[in-house]
């Protein structure tokens, strides 16, 4: 067997590693290992100077393997793949060894132990690298068409954005009408444009564009295929119920939110005159002059904030819904425009009218709204009074902790956003859902609309509570991501995926169920037998299938059975 030429670089990380690991000792111990032709330490391996040093070594010494022992692979995998590629080494012949998060930082009290562990980890990295082979990314052709699921304000705006970039768009909406929540809204902040008017404009623009196909009363029932060419089944309901199949290159999920539904008795919900925020908004938008409820005039209104939000450590909705403080204050201002003499009491935990919504908060106070603050462990109580009106009791933190009774004609529970029940769609798309029930992005700052499923992006309030403008902004971010992927016409996928050795496979069927991405399927015709086949474009390289195979017929590229065995031997060898 030809000897390999491996370069090993152990990082000080400015002291983050070398304060607890004797990096010189690690290099001394591996520099004479078989196949290692160069081993060095570096103050910061990721610095330009050290990258150049590695580049020069690859070229001058003809390295065919690279081991970098520094931080987590999450940080610099692409940095060092880039160095390898620039120097002419296949980027998949490089191994990242984590001696910071998984060694120096974890063992700050044991320098000798940390040094030994680092040495073992580096040896395992060398053992893996010995068995690496050059790989080329899987290239797939992409279909220049995007599926948008949900025709609320975010989905509609995204569809228009995609169409104007020159991509075909299919919009699928479950309801009979487009527009989601916004289609029922009256005047919206800050320019008092009506929600229904906004939706009318968006719908007209969608219908003007020939490259947008809009299906209402329709649902996505199945997704197959892989990034670049997803095959999606759409089922329409109503008079002409049918199922059709379309091919799309990417998918944008904009399925929106549900409003929190209080339980019977929660803050008096169920008592006549206690309503949720959406119910109240509907009444307000319909009212011409002063407000009436069930034929009775409404003069005194009490709002209770944070209903269904910030439910402590045990509740299912521990997050702040963000939009509701501003929405309630906006509703209060709307009521003043209809009835300036209305008396409004706001019972809150913390006011979070962030950004310019603070100006609405101020305006509402200037117009006479009174704000009372309650403590989390002592929420206000609502009951029916003797005179038939409602009574809200609160211990006001702003008035010397005094208990105050507020008579009210209407109590508005300022309800937050909750994730929409969408189990069938979640199952069809195989999208990850967070602990709070909303869809998860890959990275909240740097990849805010992409998901772990290639080509599937999320936007709007199906991701987390957002107001209309934030929803549209994320919709357009999803457009950019989708278009960037599809406009190239081809996409490169990570080649570190699993494959089945058909000679060893017995079609026992164990692996099919383990794949979270549906990448494994039985195929007829291998020497007359049926065997499992893994689609390289669908496989994400998670490795879940490899250990369950009783025949050891599945190998994950970069982590083959032979490599894992070699790494264990590297880890277990005497340190001395």
């Amino acid at each position: 067997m030809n000897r390999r030429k491996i370069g090993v670089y152990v990082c000080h990380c400015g002291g983050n590693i070398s304060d607890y690991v004797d990096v010189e000792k690690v290099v001394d111990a591996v520099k004479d290992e078989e196949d290692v032709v160069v081993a060095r330490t570096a103050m910061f391996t990721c610095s330009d100077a050290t990258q150049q040093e590695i580049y020069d070594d690859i070229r001058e010494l003809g390295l065919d393997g690279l081991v970098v022992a520094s931080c987590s692979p999450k940080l610099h995998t692409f940095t060092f793949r880039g160095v390898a590629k620039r120097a002419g080494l296949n980027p998949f012949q490089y191994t990242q060894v984590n001696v910071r998060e998984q060694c120096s930082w974890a063992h700050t009290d044991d320098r000798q132990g940390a040094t030994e562990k680092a040495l073992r980890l580096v040896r395992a990295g060398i053992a893996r690298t010995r068995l690496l082979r050059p790989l080329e990314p899987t290239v797939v052709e992409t279909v220049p068409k995007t599926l948008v699921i949900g025709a609320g304000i975010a989905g509609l705006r995204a569809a228009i954005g995609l169409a104007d970039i020159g991509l075909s768009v299919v919009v699928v909406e479950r309801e009979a009408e487009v527009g989601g929540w916004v289609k029922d809204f009256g005047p919206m902040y800050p320019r008092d444009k009506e929600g229904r008017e906004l939706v009318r404009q968006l719908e007209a623009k969608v219908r003007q564009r020939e490259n947008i196909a809009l299906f209402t009363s329709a649902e996505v029932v199945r997704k197959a295929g892989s990034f670049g060419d997803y095959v999606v089944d759409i089922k329409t309901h109503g008079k002409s119920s049918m199922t059709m199949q379309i091919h799309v290159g990417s998918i944008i999920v904009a399925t929106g939110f549900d409003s929190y539904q209080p339980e019977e008795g929660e803050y008096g919900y169920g008592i006549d005159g206690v309503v949720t925020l959406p119910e109240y908004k509907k009444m307000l938008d319909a009212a011409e002059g002063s407000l009436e409820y069930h034929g009775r005039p409404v003069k005194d209104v009490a709002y209770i904030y944070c209903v269904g939000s910030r439910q402590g450590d045990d509740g299912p909705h521990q997050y702040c819904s963000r939009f509701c403080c501003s929405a309630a204050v906006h509703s209060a201002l709307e009521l003043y425009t209809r009835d300036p003499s209305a008396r409004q009491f706001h019972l809150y935990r913390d006011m979070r009218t962030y950004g310019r919504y603070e100006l609405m908060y101020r305006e509402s106070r200037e117009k006479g709204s009174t704000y009372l603050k309650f403590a989390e462990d002592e929420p206000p109580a609502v009951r029916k009074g003797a005179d038939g009106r409602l009574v809200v009791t609160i211990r006001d933190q702003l008035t010397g902790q005094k208990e105050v009774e507020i008579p009210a004609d209407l109590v508005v529970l300022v309800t937050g956003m909750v994730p929409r029940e969408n189990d069938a769609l979640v199952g069809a798309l195989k999208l990850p859902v967070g602990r709070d029930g909303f869809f998860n992005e890959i990275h909240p700052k740097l990849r805010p609309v992409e998901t772990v499923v290639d080509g599937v992006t999320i936007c709007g309030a199906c991701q987390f509570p957002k107001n209309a403008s934030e929803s549209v902004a994320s919709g357009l971010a999803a457009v950019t991501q989708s278009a960037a992927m599809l406009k190239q016409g081809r996409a490169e996928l990570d080649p570190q995926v699993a494959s089945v050795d058909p000679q060893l496979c017995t079609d026992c069927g164990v692996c099919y169920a383990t794949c979270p991405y549906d990448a494994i399927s039985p195929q007829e015709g291998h020497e007359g037998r049926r065997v499992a086949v893994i689609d390289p474009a669908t496989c994400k390289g998670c490795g879940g299938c490899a250990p369950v195979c009783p025949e050891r017929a599945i190998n994950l590229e970069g982590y083959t059975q032979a490599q894992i065995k070699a790494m264990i031997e590297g880890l277990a060898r005497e340190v001395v």
Partner: protein
Amino acid sequence: MAVARPTFIDEVRQSEQFNAAACMNCGVCTAICPMGLEHLPREIFRYVVLGMEEEVLKEQETVFSCLLCKLCEENCPAGVHITENVRSLRHYFDRKAFRI
């Protein structure tokens, strides 16, 4: 338990300038008061906007101790017309307590 009476504020209000509800309870006024008045203006204004008349009537001494120096008003981040509001309160006491 005090019962809020939202119409009470109309009895105290002397002019359109009266804007006790604009207060956001930051406490700058209390911290800065050269007379060291504890309840004026913030807490008394709370009693007014909530309609807690009995509590207001207990504060006669405080309301008339104010120098109307406007130090609090100058520093109020919420733009509350504090001295104007105190004048409204004095008028209220004149009518209600002194019957003049």
